[in-house]
């Protein structure tokens, strides 16, 4: 086993492990076959599993996800790629109205075990239509599980859980993390969906982050430690199931909460987390809750502008200082 593996490689590895285990697992998407995917996150799958398990599609997001749904209802476990998460908007009917509702509205007659994988997030200068963190779109829809791993090992372990899940899972792979490296996943690695990870312990404030924002939160925690503020950092890993228990438990120790979200402040996932805390955890709070989130604007192209819009380490540090002074 390699010493380290990239997040990008982990995606392909995670899928391959499940394809080896279960012949019902098949992949479809644009340029995912011989080309290995635009982000090379399906590299090697076509070579190992061939055209009967790895299918190149036309540019037809509705047909991709709709066909995945039909296949999932009839015995397969499709893994559909939507190249950029912004394009989920092109098949939103399937994500919002069909896939998450069909089991419920048929009184439980139908099961839809599929994964929609998609490259998410900004920081790479892809502009307004290729840079969004859209996990909050999915979060408005009951009936979807939502995974957004931050490390290569989690990618593999959560991919296993997602593909084995009998529920539909939207799997957000962060573009800004693809090149990042980390420990490889041990054989058979499985990370149950809905379990947050406390990735740094601390007694003064709880930082809750997702995907690439975990890195930002951890860096902020380091800087804060130098000032004598010990931040606990929670990697949420999933939005649904949402591990509010881990967050509330942490707040029992720290009494202060900052969320670090890439999505815009308005309608961001952190808002729901905060509303749970403001209800069930109100008594635990010693200070206001602050959300460090994206500005409520489209993503601009230029670095200088994108930095101004997406959460940065400085913004997190400033937010924590504000609460610490409260």
């Amino acid at each position, binding site marked *: 086993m390699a010493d380290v593996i990239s997040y990008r490689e982990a995606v392909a590895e995670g899928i391959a492990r499940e394809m080896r285990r279960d012949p019902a697992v098949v992949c479809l998407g644009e340029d995912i076959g011989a080309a290995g995917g635009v982000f090379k996150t399906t590299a090697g799958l076509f070579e190992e599993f061939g055209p009967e398990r790895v299918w190149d599609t036309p540019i037809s997001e509705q047909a991709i996800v709709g066909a995945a749904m*039909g296949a999932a209802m009839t015995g397969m476990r499709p893994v559909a790629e939507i190249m950029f998460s912004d394009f989920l908007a092109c098949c939103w009917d399937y994500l919002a109205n069909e896939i998450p509702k069909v089991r419920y509205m*048929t*009184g439980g007659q139908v099961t839809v075990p599929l994964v929609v994988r998609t490259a998410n997030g900004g920081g790479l200068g892809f502009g307004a239509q290729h840079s969004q963190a859209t996990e909050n779109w999915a979060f408005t829809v*009951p009936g979807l599980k939502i995974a957004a791993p931050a490390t290569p090992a989690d990618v593999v372990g959560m991919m296993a859980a997602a593909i084995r899940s009998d529920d539909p899972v939207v799997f957000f792979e962060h573009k800004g993390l693809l090149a990042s490296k980390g420990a490889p996943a041990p054989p058979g690695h499985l990370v149950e969906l809905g379990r947050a990870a406390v990735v740094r312990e601390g007694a003064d404030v709880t930082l809750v982050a997702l995907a690439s924002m975990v890195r930002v939160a951890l860096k902020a925690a380091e800087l804060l430690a130098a000032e004598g503020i010990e931040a606990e950092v929670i990697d949420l890993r999933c939005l649904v199931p*949402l591990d*509010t228990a881990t967050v509330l438990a942490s707040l029992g120790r720290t009494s202060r909460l900052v969320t670090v979200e890439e999505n815009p402040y308005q309608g961001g996932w952190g808002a729901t987390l905060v509303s749970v805390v403001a209800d069930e955890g109100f008594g635990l709070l010693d200070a206001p809750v602050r959300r460090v989130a994206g500005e409520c604007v489209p993503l601009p192209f230029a670095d200088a502008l994108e930095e101004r819009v997406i959460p940065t380490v400085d913004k997190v540090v400033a937010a924590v200082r504000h609460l610490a002074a409260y």
Partner: protein
Amino acid sequence: MDAAELLTRYEQMAVIRRTERAAHDLFLSGLVKGTTHLAAGHEAIAVGASAALRDDDYVFATYRGHHHAMARGATPEECLAELMSRATGLCGGKGGSMHLTKASTGMLGSYAIVGAHLPMAVGAAWSARMRGTGQLAVAFFGDGATNIGAFHEALNLAAVWKLPVLFVCENNLYMEYTPIADVTAVARPAADRASAYGLPGETVDGNDVVAVRDAVARLARRARAGDGPALLEAETYRHFGHSRADPAAYRPAEEVERWLKHDPLDLARGRLVELGVAEERVSEADARARDVVARAVEAAKAAPAPDPGTALTDVWADGGAAWRT
């Protein structure tokens, strides 16, 4: 189709017709809430197509889907109970008229977003191909659905992958209240689009159960043999308005009259006479249909409402609805 089979199909159609009438009356008397989209007039398409399918084939339908549910084995009672919000309904009261589904017989659902189910049928056919089962998938949809993007994406993908899927358009000349000709660039909304996917574009009299059976059987054979999907446009007409209590005043009286004379049940009855079936055999079938539906109405009325607690079940495969810890 021989006389015995045709009589069976006739009876199936009669059951559907009477169920739709019952649904209409129950809606007017306040026992069915929300909305209904009745398929009276469309019976021959569902029954004719089903007659050409295997039991393990897949069917996907629209909000106007009662006839497909029943043609694929749902009972009038299961359907009416669903419409009447009963625990004994096909979907336990969670679906309603627009979402009749009987997965156990391959009737994989009624979908209320126009066109959305076409890609699903493609996926079911793709799955059948991969599993090597020889199953077919059929999507039924309206003329109006031919103008939505999902139609285009589904047909192209099915054609490229040469999948065993049939697209059957129930062209009843109208979307809701607007004539399809007013909003469609070609005369035959489905058939005239076939060439854009390299498919033959066929039409059939959708009120003639034998013609529908024959066309679907032929296209199904072709598709199962690996020769790819097909698009079939079945011309028909709805006897009621679009939904609820729509009186369909936007349809010319002359047109309505002409189509009511071209009734699928009358057509089948005429064929039965031609085949030498005694009139009383037909009357017996009618009587059986009447009884079945009458009993279904009573049974549905007597059935209990769903337990409110079931509102919070069946989101997830574990049966529950928990979204957080």
